[in-house]
């Protein structure tokens, strides 16, 4: 069993707790134990917070990193936004002495020091990594295959991009997430402009909701075109934008999609035999029933 400090972020624990519960239970079956990172806070939100003052963004993200350094454990997380803050600040501070000294000057005020002794991983990359888990192990853990369902993948932005600072390769048409979806017995589908943003990031959801939803609406139209039973992602903020966004889109633009939106961990949970109640799917704004009826 590999152990990781589980950085929760905000939206998973406070809006979609099913993601948190599923991540812990499904990972345990894949040889990954998630331990709570006590006292962690907001990553903080890279778009909404970093936009105001990057220095505070570095310092607050570093505080979260130091908590894991004190546990002497790598961090894993389930949100692209958190990945941008936690992974990127870890990376920058490890390689930029000037910024690290600046951050440590602030952290000294709270008796902390950033040492750069740990690494940060998105749970989805641990699942895909052959050395840690791998697609075959994911497939072997499935007891209730999602046979007969067509599922649209959404990669989101901040895990893969900007590609020159990341290690995920192609960002124009990656296919690795599809392998993980297919491993659950489902059929992943391709759609137009797959890599487009969900529209929520950068503080735009709060700044101009109509603009933000218009981007989401374009994605939903493209997915509707190929006929998918559900959309899956590995970012609770994208999930919020697609899920609650569909209600808002109906109000604002009069378009209805009824497309269930599930975090990959929620899908994996279903495929490993967890019930919809164990995943709190009733908290989703879009009814998941049509999708569940196909698999249960």
């Amino acid at each position, binding site marked *: 069993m590999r152990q990781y400090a589980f950085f929760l972020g905000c939206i998973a624990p406070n809006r979609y707790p099913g993601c*948190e519960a599923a991540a812990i239970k499904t990972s345990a079956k894949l040889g990954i134990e998630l331990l709570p990172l006590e*006292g962690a806070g907001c990553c903080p939100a890279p778009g*909404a917070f970093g936009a*105001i003052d990057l220095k505070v963004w570095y310092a*607050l993200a570093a505080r979260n990193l130091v908590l894991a350094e004190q546990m002497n454990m790598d961090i894993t997380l389930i949100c692209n936004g958190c990945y941008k803050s936690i992974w990127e600040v870890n990376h920058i501070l490890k390689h930029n002495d000037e910024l690290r000294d600046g951050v440590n000057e602030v952290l000294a005020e709270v008796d902390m020091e950033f040492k750069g002794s740990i690494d940060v991983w998105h749970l989805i990359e641990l699942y895909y990594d052959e050395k840690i888990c791998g697609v075959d192990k994911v497939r072997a853990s499935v007891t209730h295959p999602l046979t007969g369902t067509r599922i649209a993948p959404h990669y989101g932005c901040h895990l893969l*991009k900007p590609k020159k600072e990341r290690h995920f390769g192609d*960002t124009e048409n990656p296919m690795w997430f599809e392998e993980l979806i297919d491993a659950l017995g489902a059929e992943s589908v391709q759609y137009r402009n797959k890599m487009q943003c969900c529209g929520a990031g950068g503080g735009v959801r*709060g700044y101009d909701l109509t*603009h933000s939803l218009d981007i989401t609406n374009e994605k939903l139209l493209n997915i509707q075109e190929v006929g998918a039973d559900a959309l899956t992602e590995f970012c609770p903020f994208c999930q919020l934008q697609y899920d609650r966004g569909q209600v808002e889109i109906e109000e604002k633009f009069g378009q209805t999609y009824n497309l269930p939106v599930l975090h990959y961990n929620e899908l994996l949970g279903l495929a490993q035999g967890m019930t919809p109640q164990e995943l709190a799917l009733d908290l989703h704004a879009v009814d998941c029933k049509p999708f569940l009826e196909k698999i249960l």
Partner: protein
Amino acid sequence: MAKVKDYGNAELEEKLRDTAYYADDANPQFLEDVKKISRTAANMCFQCGTCTGSCPSAPRSSYRIRLFMRKGVLGLEKEALYDPDLWLCTTCYSCTDRCPRDLAPTDVIMAMRNLAFKIDIVPRNFLKTVQLIYTTGHGVPNNDVNRAAREKLGLPADPPTTHSHPEFIPGIQKIMDFYKMKENADRILAEGEQ
């Protein structure tokens, strides 16, 4: 999606009314500041427009990231920082991945937003996030519906974050106070309500 762009602030609108360029308007230091904060060589932009072509915000607004790149190079500080479009970037980094000069236009926008905040130009929603993190440690805090749902799942009603460990919140506040961030956010919000 067509709409009138404005900040709802008569004084600012007056400042923005004259849009002709004069050499006096240029501030070369602006480009240097942008380069330092963004950690990208913004002066290398040759205005090909790949960034705007890749931008999900461009087709539905007047936001043109290439324009901001140009304003940075020309040192047109006010033109760039006063434009409400500055806040329409979703930070998707598509432009950064495709830039043929290997620049990071997204980070240029982030740097410009940082500079705008220094002169009190910032949308209210950004400041509200600051206040929430300052008081709870979370940008999106827990609520009662969610607490009940968490308990049903066998999770603690409050996650093992600052929500269960409020003793960590003063540390977060100290870090934010070091940069006077909360103070500035409160002041800007209060001034906006007058």
